[in-house]
């Protein structure tokens, strides 16, 4: 019995060494490429990606005009809960190594969801103006900070703005509550200013985007929206992307590649985005 076990263990050991040897061989073949060859391969791949990005979208087998694509996506989403029927736009970005990620924000003519806003200020006049112009969820000064700190008011807002004089109190008392949720007003984020009104106006209906890997994905609407509204949102997205490309701080600018419109349960359909 012990011999059989011994034999078994030896066999397993040989197999293991065999796998290790194979792995070492593959590593050796990878490292055989010299630096020049690796660089050439990188350049070749970049040229291929650029050529693919320059090709017209209509060449792709999954290309469709937007109206036809929306008809298919609505059919694919039939019977699904309306909260899940989101339309997504995914754009490939062709960028060279070292180029910073593309980012910015889109201001949608038809926002996807109502954003709840909180405004912190000790200036009564400002609070009054903001309350008159916008539908704010929470408005207040030091007393509001106290209430949120004690847990009397839940943190259920999506964006927060503040005037500079209240920022130290906010940071010292609510940084641990608002910070992890990403709603703490800071100068760096651009959510603190002496005059809040233009800030709120800018950010209402705007959606931030950022390149993740080699693509940007953003929700542009719901299946219940009319074709025109979705089209307006797509055009706004296109303009925002182009603006982000212009403002990109790099010598070599990125390129927009294949763009796909898809829904939560539906297929991805290539559209003309250039």
């Amino acid at each position: 019995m012990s011999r059989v076990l011994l034999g078994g263990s030896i066999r397993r050991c040989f197999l293991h060494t065999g796998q290790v040897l194979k792995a070492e061989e593959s590593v050796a073949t990878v490292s055989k490429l010299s630096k020049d060859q690796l660089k050439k391969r990188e350049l070749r791949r970049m040229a291929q990606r650029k050529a693919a990005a320059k090709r017209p979208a209509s060449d792709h087998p999954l290309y469709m005009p937007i109206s036809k694509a929306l008809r298919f996506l609505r059919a694919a989403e039939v019977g699904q809960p309306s909260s899940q029927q989101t339309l997504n736009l995914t754009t490939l970005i062709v960028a060279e190594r070292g180029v910073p990620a593309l980012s910015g924000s889109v201001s949608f003519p038809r926002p996807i969801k109502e954003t709840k806003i909180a405004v912190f200020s000790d200036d009564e006049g400002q609070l009054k103006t903001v309350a008159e112009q916008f539908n704010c969820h929470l408005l207040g000064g030091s007393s509001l900070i106290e209430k949120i700190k004690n847990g009397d008011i839940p943190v259920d807002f999506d964006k927060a703005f503040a005037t500079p004089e209240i920022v130290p109190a906010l940071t010292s008392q609510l940084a641990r509550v608002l910070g992890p949720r990403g709603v703490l007003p800071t100068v760096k984020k651009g959510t603190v200013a002496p005059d809040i009104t233009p800030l709120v106006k800018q950010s209402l209906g705007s959606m931030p985007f950022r390149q993740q890997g080699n693509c940007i994905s953003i929700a542009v609407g719901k299946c219940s929206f009319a074709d025109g509204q979705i089209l307006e949102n797509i055009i706004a997205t296109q303009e925002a992307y182009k603006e982000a490309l212009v403002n990109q701080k790099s010598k070599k600018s990125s390129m927009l590649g294949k763009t796909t419109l898809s829904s939560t349960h539906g297929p991805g359909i290539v559209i003309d985005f250039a």
Partner: protein
Amino acid sequence: MSSVKKQLEFLNKISYNTKKAQIFVNSEKVTGLKLLFQWQNHDGHMGARKFWHEYLPTLQYYNPALKIDLLRLKNDKRDVEVPCKIEILGRESKILDTINMQYKKDNEIMDDLLLKLDHEVVPQDQLVKV
């Protein structure tokens, strides 16, 4: 769903390959369909779920104005009797007809629906193939 071939199959299933559901519903008489069944398959509710996945996308594709509402009720403990039915709605949400889907297969449900719906088959030249 990354493969182009798979996506083309998915699109063609909606617009070309599901023959029974390729109909134009008379929109002057019928304005919508309302389906009610269980989240779970027991008590003969599986056919309804399959009918939803197999035939409703094609029906919606060729009738974009047809309002299709679907309500699925959760019945984990099997303590409630959930109806399994389709209601055909007319003008002003008036119920024109009701079809029982319990213990029926998806194709049988589609056959029953075709019998009760005022419709015409989509002509061959108007079918969309991707």
